[in-house]
């Protein structure tokens, strides 16, 4: 029962934060809403038994990626957004099309997928560090090594791009 209540609270928090991200005019409010989404998703991962991933989500997304966003917004002194969409098609047909997309995805989930189980907190603890470590370093070793090179390239790229030109 408690896990149902927790799911409802954090799902509503995630959706409200998502709406806030899209509707707020100032980038810093959007950034804080995104941190709210990430926190709620971390709790939902805990409910689904993925404990290592939940903590990694908070450390990587909430503690590194979003700090990067917030620092860039502060450094560039990003102000409130000006203007709105000029395209009449997007303004008139945008919202109905988005609602259609949600309805389509919901229908596909209900109709096409086979009957799914119900989520019971504690019935599966398969996301411990030991399990993830075992799989990551045996079956998925090649993607792991490739991803470390990807991060190295990203660091080099970011440093080169953000460097001030000395002239």
């Amino acid at each position, binding site marked *: 029962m408690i*896990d149902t209540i927790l799911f409802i609270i954090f799902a509503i928090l995630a959706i409200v934060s998502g709406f806030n991200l899209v509707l707020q005019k100032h980038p810093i409010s*959007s950034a804080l809403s995104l941190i709210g*989404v990430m926190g709620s998703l971390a709790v939902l*991962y805990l409910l689904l038994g993925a404990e290592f991933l939940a903590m990694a989500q908070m450390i990587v997304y909430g503690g590194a990626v979003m700090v990067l*966003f917030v620092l860039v917004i502060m450094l560039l002194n990003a102000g409130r957004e000006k203007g709105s969409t000029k395209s009449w098609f997007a303004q008139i047909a945008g919202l109905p099309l988005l609602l259609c997309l949600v309805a389509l995805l919901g229908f596909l989930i209900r109709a096409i997928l086979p009957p799914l*189980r119900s989520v019971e907190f504690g019935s599966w603890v398969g996301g411990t560090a030991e399990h993830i470590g075992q799989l990551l370093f045996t079956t998925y070793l090649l993607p792991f090594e490739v*991803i470390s090179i990807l991060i190295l390239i990203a660091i080099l790229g970011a440093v080169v*791009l953000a460097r001030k030109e000395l002239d």
Partner: protein
Amino acid sequence: MGHVPLSWYLVLSAILFVLGVAGFVYRKSIITVFMSIELMLNAVNLSFVSFSYELRRIDGQIFSFFVMVVAAAEAAVGLAIILTIFRNRGTLQIDEVDSMKL
């Protein structure tokens, strides 16, 4: 009150994804567009973890881990590009970055 069916998690993932698409299409500040992309990636992560719970295999969580790492790398490079655009054009509105000539 019973337990939450897994399809609710998938529907939540779909709603967050569509919110991300809405932000990506409608917002004018490049940083907010970038944040909508991160929201879409998070929604997909939730979907992966839900299916990993359903099939009782951790491969979904491993893939979600890789998505997280790629999103972090992309955020770093993307924000560096945004900084460069701001330095060269002086604006963060994507409407005003509409010609190749500086």
